[in-house]
């Protein structure tokens, strides 16, 4: 057995899957070849290390998140499978039609290419719009998955993951009622100031959505963190939400209000009135 052949069999050797004859050959070669011996020892060390790596433990929520995503994906796949089966039968049938001689194969390919280019050109306009609907459809599916993941992330214990949830929500084209409700909920209930701040920014993007303006005005009275209050006041002023006037007036009356926030609220009042 030569070095080349030994190398080929080294994986099976390490896994203990060589038949007796090959095993004897490998052993005989190793006895004579110090280079191969060294190589195999190195490989063997890596092999053992791989074996003792601790398996990563996924978090508990990963399971439910995964199944949700899987469901969404499976629905998409069901539609694909119908198309795939047809495709497979078709390609098998076509294979039988292919000529044996290479010269004829080349000729056939050239003819097909010409035909393809020709019809492609003719059909280009029609196919472009078809492609667009397909892309839109795909985007819709991606949006659905994104929505599921975002809602799930917003409920995680880790504030960094909740930040990711807000960020994913902000990237949706059409957030939908569920996401808006989740973001407003986060704004009002999240224990972390940073997450609430991020929620204000995300809601800013969706201020046209019916629930948002109302939700933002109502949120103002419940906020205690000065940074969140400032951010919310700025947002309400910027979207010219006149319904915020009452909430701002009430806020200014609060004795515990941070003086900087008070100043901003008063400025906001003049801008909105």
């Amino acid at each position: 057995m030569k070095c080349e052949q030994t190398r080929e069999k080294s994986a099976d050797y390490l896994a203990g899957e060589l038949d007796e004859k090959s095993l004897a050959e490998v052993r005989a070669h190793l006895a004579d070849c110090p280079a191969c011996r060294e190589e195999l020892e190195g490989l063997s060390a890596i092999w053992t290390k791989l074996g003792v790596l601790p398996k990563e433990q996924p978090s508990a929520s990963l399971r439910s998140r995964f199944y949700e995503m899987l469901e969404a994906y499976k629905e998409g796949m069901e539609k694909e499978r119908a198309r795939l089966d047809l495709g497979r039968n078709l390609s098998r049938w076509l294979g039988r039609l292919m000529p044996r001689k290479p010269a004829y194969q080349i000729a056939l390919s050239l003819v097909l290419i010409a035909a393809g280019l020709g019809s492609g050109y003719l059909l280009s306009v029609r196919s472009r719009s078809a492609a667009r609907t397909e892309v839109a459809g795909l985007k819709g599916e991606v949006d659905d998955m994104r929505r599921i993941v975002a809602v799930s992330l917003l409920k995680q214990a880790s504030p960094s993951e909740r930040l990711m949830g807000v960020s994913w929500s902000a990237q949706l084209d059409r957030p939908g009622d569920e996401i808006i409700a989740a973001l407003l909920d986060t704004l009002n209930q999240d224990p972390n100031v940073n997450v609430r701040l991020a929620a204000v920014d995300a809601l800013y993007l969706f201020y046209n959505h019916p629930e948002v303006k109302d939700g933002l005005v109502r949120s103002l009275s419940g906020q205690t963190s000065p940074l969140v209050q400032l951010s919310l006041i700025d947002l309400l002023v910027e979207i010219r939400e006149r319904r915020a006037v009452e909430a701002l007036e009430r806020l200014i009356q609060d004795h515990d209000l941070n003086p900087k926030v008070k100043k901003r609220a008063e400025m906001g009042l003049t801008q909105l009135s």
Partner: protein
Amino acid sequence: MKTIVRLAGIIILLWAAGMADNAQESQADHAVVNFSNPAKPGKVEVDISEGSITVRGYEGKDVIIDARWRERVLTEKEQEPEAALAEKGEELDQEELARKKAQAEKAKGMKMIEVESMGLTIEEEENVIQVNAEEGKRAVDLVIQVPFSTSLRLSCRDDERGVTVDRVDGEIEVDTSDGPIILTNVSGPVVADSSDGEIKAVFGKVTPGKPMSFSAMDGDIDITLPLDVKASLKIKTDEGQIYTDFDVRLTPSQQKKEEDERKEGGGYRVAFEKVTLGLINGGGVEIQLTTYEGNIYVRKAK
């Protein structure tokens, strides 16, 4: 499995009659807690109202907690009971006044014995250790040693010493009201906020894909990132300045609102969101930095 380790000590200091000195030694508690599953990274949550929290990573598997209770700050009222009584005589109602006078009479010639319930509780459940201090009269300085991979959630209000963390690789969530937040040799992700304190974080490396956020109402934010970090910065500050020695590629803020009502007889208005977006090394980990007055410093690790 639920493991509850409860430490509630009542310490009674007895002073010999001859001791005139009122100096008290601060009392120290010591506890070693292990995680239900030491092979998996654990989490330590600390919530105290007055005091400071110091956390250090070390090579062991257990969490070692040392609590040092500070001397009780005697209020004026206790130092000069009678003078105070006289002052406040008009404010307290007669009954209350009479009762306090009677008590002062009974205590004449004696020294007060400090009876303090330490009020520190430590609980562990499913790899999460919770340390809480009752809102009592004494502030506590906690020094906690944790395994490197531990995640932390630390909350400390009303105190100027704040929170310090060194050599911890897990996720760190911190909030303080007065004290500073100082993190060194951490790898994140970090979510920190402080009302009055400053925030300082020095990253040894940065965990990719996990967003971070820092916000400070009055203080500065000063973070140091590794040279090769890939980060997307989102910075908002009302009156502060932003400084960096990184090569930051500023990208236009997408948050621009345009209103054109000129066709309907209205006006034209464009509003830009006061946010600064910048990419370091092409962008990557989202880092949000928000201050009101404080400056923001984004430094390269030397």
